[in-house]
């Protein structure tokens, strides 16, 4: 029964967070410069027509009224239609004002459904790469505090965290794609196109994992139950794997949950540099085009993902350590 109460409570909290995020995004979009109607209608459109279209679309109503209308549609599973994009999904600019013939607009949900799996794939691969690199370094650092593995973990983490992702992306593309021809760099035509951006994201994530593991493993190894395990006759490997790592995985899981959520919503720069057609690139184009419904849709989906991932992380951590209650 606990699980049901827990889920109901967390989902209710999550819904509130998503609605709040949606409201903030909704309001901000309407106060920043750049009238979407002028972009839709074309720069040459007369003011009267701009006002007519805006009124017809309800864009001149008070913001709370607009938001109420919007959230009611969202509650029915309708994120609306893109202001700009046709059903083909192309990133488009405005046509002229009296052009009522533009192709049918794309549904926001369809655009997100098309882009999200690619970002999910990128985020998962980035996380795998980051864990492959960071876990051995972080664990070694934690097992040998003050000695060279610890110092190496610190120095490597410092180097990784100092590399700007846009710079690293360009350098890696030049090296691995242009010079060596090992990997494709731009766009998406298969899984191989995910590798290079995933490496860049992994380098960005790895320092946090290294630091978390180094600190938590070092702390756990000083606990009395570790000493008792030695007295019980367990080997060092058994102690590390069955006790130290298991306990260290709780803070690591929390960190990974936050990192993964950020990857889903915030891989803007990396996707833009690699022209990777995921949620990040979709977001950038939507912002540049003042495509309000699309920006709002992406914000709602990513904040909902953030909430769900955190619920999953909490569940996972309680499964690992039953002493934890949420």
């Amino acid at each position, binding site marked *: 029964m606990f699980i049901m109460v827990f889920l109901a409570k967390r989902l209710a909290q999550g819904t509130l967070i998503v609605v709040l995020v949606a409201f903030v995004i909704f309001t901000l979009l309407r106060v920043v410069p750049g009238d979407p109607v002028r972009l839709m209608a074309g720069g040459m459109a007369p003011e009267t027509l701009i006002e007519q279209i805006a009124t017809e679309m309800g864009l001149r109503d008070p913001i709370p009224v607009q938001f109420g209308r919007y959230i009611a549609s969202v509650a029915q599973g309708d994120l609306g239609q893109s202001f700009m994009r046709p059903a083909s999904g192309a990133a*488009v600019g405005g046509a002229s*004002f009296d052009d009522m013939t533009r192709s049918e607009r794309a549904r926001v949900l369809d655009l997100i459904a098309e882009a999200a799996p690619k970002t999910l794939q990128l985020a998962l691969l980035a996380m795998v790469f980051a864990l492959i690199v960071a876990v051995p370094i972080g664990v070694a650092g934690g097992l040998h505090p003050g000695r060279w593995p610890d110092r190496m973990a610190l120095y490597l983490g410092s180097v990784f965290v100092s590399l700007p992702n846009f710079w690293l992306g360009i350098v890696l593309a030049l090296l691995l794609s242009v010079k060596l*021809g090992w990997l494709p*760099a*731009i766009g998406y035509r298969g899984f*191989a196109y995910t590798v290079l951006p995933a490496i860049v994201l992994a380098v960005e994530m790895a320092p946090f994992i290294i630091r978390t593991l180094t600190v938590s493993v070092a702390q756990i190894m000083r606990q009395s139950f570790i000493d008792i395990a030695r007295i019980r006759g367990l080997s060092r490997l058994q102690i590390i794997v069955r006790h130290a790592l298991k306990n260290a995985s709780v803070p690591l899981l929390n960190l990974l949950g936050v990192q993964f959520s950020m990857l889903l919503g915030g891989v803007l720069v990396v996707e833009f540099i690699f*022209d990777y057609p995921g949620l990040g690139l979709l977001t950038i184009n939507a912002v540049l085009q*003042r495509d309000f419904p699309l920006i709002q849709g992406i914000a709602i989906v990513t904040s909902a993902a953030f909430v769900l991932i955190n619920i999953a992380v909490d569940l996972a951590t309680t*499964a690992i350590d039953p002493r934890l209650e949420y």
Partner: protein
Amino acid sequence: MISRRNFLSASALACGALATARIDPDFFFTSARAQSNRPITFLSAENITGNWDPTAHTTLSQTTIQGFVMGYLARAPMRPEDPGEMVMELATSIEQLDPHRLEIRLREDITFHDGKPFRAEDVKATFEYGSQPDRPAQWYPGSNETFEVTTPDDYTVIVDTSKGGYGAHLFIFLAAYLPIMSASDISGGPRGPLSQRLNGTGPFRFVEQRGNSTVMEAFPDYYKGHPTVEGVTFSFVGDATTRMLSLMNGQADIIERLEPEQFATLEGRDDIKLSRLVSVENKYLWFRCSKPPFDDWRVRRAACHAIDRTVIDEILGTAGEPSSNFISPIKFGYSDLANYPEYDPEECQRLLAEAGYPNGEGLPDLEYITSTGFYPKTRDYGEIITMLLREQGFPVTLNVMEVAAWNERLYDRPGGGPGHMIDCGWSTGSPEPDLVLRTHFHSSSKRICGIEDAEIDAALDRERNAATLEERRELLQTDLLPMLADKAPALSLFTSVMIHGMRAEMDGLFIYPDGLTDASKAVFST
């Protein structure tokens, strides 16, 4: 009994099943680079509009796509050595019968991509549809009420401009700019097939819009012969560095709008070729002429004299050419204007004092709007212009905006467009000068500057109504253009240079100065 562990296990399994279905299983990619006839990958700096009707937009990237798919009566190579040269394509000849009548004779061996034979009815329908007053791309010298098109036979078209009172020769240069549509498509109206896909007589057939990529394939019945390459994939990639990296690693075959630094980076590479062409695009500093203080020509002219354009030329490097006219050197009627405003602080101060603003005193705060992300170096030279204007007493603030916000503020509106000055270029792929001059400086159009000046209107009408091309050239060079230099509704800062980068193994491309590309004879050497 549901426990946390059971719930977690079940959730993980469900997520795994969902992810397996959604994550792209295509774990490998194949390179087609070795094939000699593989499709060309073209990366564009600009997005498209979502409506395929050629008369529904003025977007350069979409015009470039049309260049692959559509046919034109003639093409204008617009090289500086012969700006007025016309090469016949769908037409075999374009002759002026008298000042108001033009005869166009057509080729007889051409079909549209949908199989319909190309005939005079298609030219007639294209002209009559494209010149309707409600079409967004207003390219014609007058509406469909001002001229008449007749078709004595299937392969002859007569254009009669008697009703409009202007010369029929205005259609000559336009012939190189107007994509010819099928009469059957046009009969479906603006909501018909025209808006859904491109159907032309060009070397490549429109296949589909796949996300940000327009996919075209070779048209086997192209009248000049089956194109060698299989097709063209035209993709929008917003970031200039990304486009360059794609070219360098071979994922792209051709990219456009290289920055000057990129030109320098790529110049020494054996695997890359560069094309640098003086374009049809001039970049302008537009004054909002319908509101103070730039409703006074003396203030506009004073601002022009405050700007040292040689500094801008230095900043632009390979991306610009000096300009002393309102049209590009490859437009019909170009000449270096003797009275074009040069950097002259003393003259600037004299004019300011004469207008009632000695040393700039009394001028309101002025907003200068520019964009970043599309045109090269706009922020850099915008800062220089701001500094130079401030030196002479203009209280200018530069407002740099990303493209969408700038675009929203670009055009004139009742009471004057936003700000007091705005940066923008204008590019039209024809030697026809009125595509720039009439569009911007006639009071019936005044797209950006908002000028309403009866003398300029009269000068524009005089050159339009000239009986012959020679007379028109004379009127442009001695009447209209010097008058514009005096009244300065805008200052043309420089002529853009169109820089393309392409893979060295690709040959046979012909690039026009507006970016249109003829790839019908393109080949890849293996």
